[in-house]
């Protein structure tokens, strides 16, 4: 895109529009858009039936079910624990609160492979958490539960960090009004506070879900990667690539990409809905 088309309707008095937008669009195309296009066109070399054969393979279906189902369960867990953590961080004061607050971002900052081996060790039969549980006959590492644990870990900050600013800005007047009108604390929380947190909670849970669907590093170590049981979809892409089955890998990749686009669309709709409520 050249600046020429914009020149007679000068977008601003400042210089550098053509250069900065030109570079932005060029870099975006080279790094992001063209490679993604390469993924979208790739699986069709085996035709739609070939694409369908890859996707409807029981092993692929099971992996997709685990990635999407596990991500959904993890998002629900975070949608319950996340608001409690955010509430405590915003409304209460206690020693070490700053530290607790800074730690929330750990899953963003800690490389996923490190989180993966740490969770795997922690929840294995000789780990700090896994060992007591194993005496109760509960196994977490190398089962689908392990997958869900890893996905919950990775998603927690999305919910907490989306809720915190909203909770901070939340006026206490409606709460006072509710209390004055005779509502008890529980009624005030569930009927007054929670409804106003709902959009942020939905946004945070959607972000956590999106991240978890595609998550790889923190999952593969704790999952055990048993085909059709604890094998996630991204791992199957890696396996297909190792067998030089590019079209098969691309077919699963396209499904994951479609899910990403669906999430972006959902988030935009959610944002519009929030905008209208204001």
């Amino acid at each position, binding site marked *: 895109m050249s600046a020429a088309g*914009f020149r007679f309707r000068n*977008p*601003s008095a*400042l*210089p*550098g*529009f053509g250069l*900065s*937008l030109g*570079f*932005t669009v060029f870099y*975006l195309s080279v790094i*992001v858009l063209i*490679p*993604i296009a*390469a*993924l979208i066109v*790739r699986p069709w070399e085996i035709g739609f039936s070939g694409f369908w054969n890859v996707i409807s393979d029981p092993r692929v279906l099971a992996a997709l079910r685990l990635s999407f189902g596990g991500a959904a369960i993890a998002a629900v867990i975070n949608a319950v624990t996340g608001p*409690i*953590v955010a*509430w*405590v*961080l915003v409304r209460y004061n*206690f020693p070490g609160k700053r530290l*607790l*607050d800074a*730690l*929330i*971002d*750990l899953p963003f*900052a*800690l*490389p*996923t*492979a*490190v989180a993966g*081996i*740490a969770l795997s*060790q*922690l929840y294995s039969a000789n780990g700090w958490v896994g060992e007591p549980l194993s005496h109760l006959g509960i196994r977490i590492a190398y089962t689908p539960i392990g997958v869900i644990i890893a996905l919950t*870990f990775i998603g927690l900050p999305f919910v907490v960090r989306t809720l915190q600013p909203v909770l901070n800005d939340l006026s206490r007047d409606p*709460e006072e009004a509710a*209390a004055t009108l005779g509502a008890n*604390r529980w009624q*005030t929380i569930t009927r007054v506070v929670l409804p106003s947190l709902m959009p942020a909670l939905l946004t945070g849970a959607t972000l956590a879900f*999106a991240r978890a669907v*595609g*998550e*790889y590093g923190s999952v593969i170590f704790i999952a055990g990667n048993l085909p059709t049981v604890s094998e996630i979809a*991204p791992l199957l*892409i*890696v396996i297909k*690539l190792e067998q030089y089955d*590019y079209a098969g*890998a691309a077919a699963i*990749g396209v499904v*994951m*990409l479609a899910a990403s*686009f669906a999430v*972006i669309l959902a988030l935009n709709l959610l944002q519009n809905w929030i905008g209208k409520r204001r």
Partner: protein
Amino acid sequence: MKFRRYPTQDHPLSRIALSLIAIGVVTLFLVLPLATVFTEALRKGLGVAWEALDDPDARAAVRLTLITAAIAVPLNAVFGVAASWAIAKFDFKGKQFLTTLIDLPFSISPVVSGLIYVLIFGLQGWFGESLREANVKIIFAVPGIVLATIFITFPFVARELIPLMEDQGRDEEEAATSLGASGWDTFMRVTLPNIRWGLLYGVLLCNARAMGEFGAVSVVSGHIRGLTNTMPLHVEVLYNDYQFVGAFAVASLLALLALVTLVLKSLLEWRFADDIAATHRH
């Protein structure tokens, strides 16, 4: 008792219960995994852990991680500044769409991010044949690792700077240019001082991700020891080789990087809250 409590305060018992749940969640999911990394690394003493780090393959992995970040982070920082300049300082059609496209890499699975480059540069990719004839290796070599890292960390600086520069408006820059400053001078003397802390914040997060990225890099690397293993990949190789102390020793280096990043991030948020978009977003 009941009258003493302000009507918008929680019952003391629920305060305690909720605090315990929050601390429990953070301990179980965040503190214990972090503590595990360091305990496992030091399980056989500091000497054994150090040996694992002193190993030539581990050193090569550290070097590759540093090289990768040294290329990817500046490129994405320059891009972030250019993109936010175009988006925040000018009006044009499709601005919202462009912003969505810039955020795209955040929504895509790391494995898919690596896959797209294999489909282009891999042996059976678009340019696979011609690259082989020209004897240029991108996949299973350093260029592929750098490309995948650039893709993964693509939005970090831009998404911090775009809202920040939109909030700051254009008045100061317009004043500078109308007084005769050149575009470059305006940027260096007006814009850059205004966005420096936000830029640093974005670079910090970008760097942490660039050094720690695993999934995307794993797909394009080929895991050749001493050649195409970054630190996170070296952790994987050692762990799958049952060299647990070594794996956790390298992992603890990465965990330290994460902790330093968190400390600096909190410091920036606390000290320069007004100059960072992430802390005054509504």
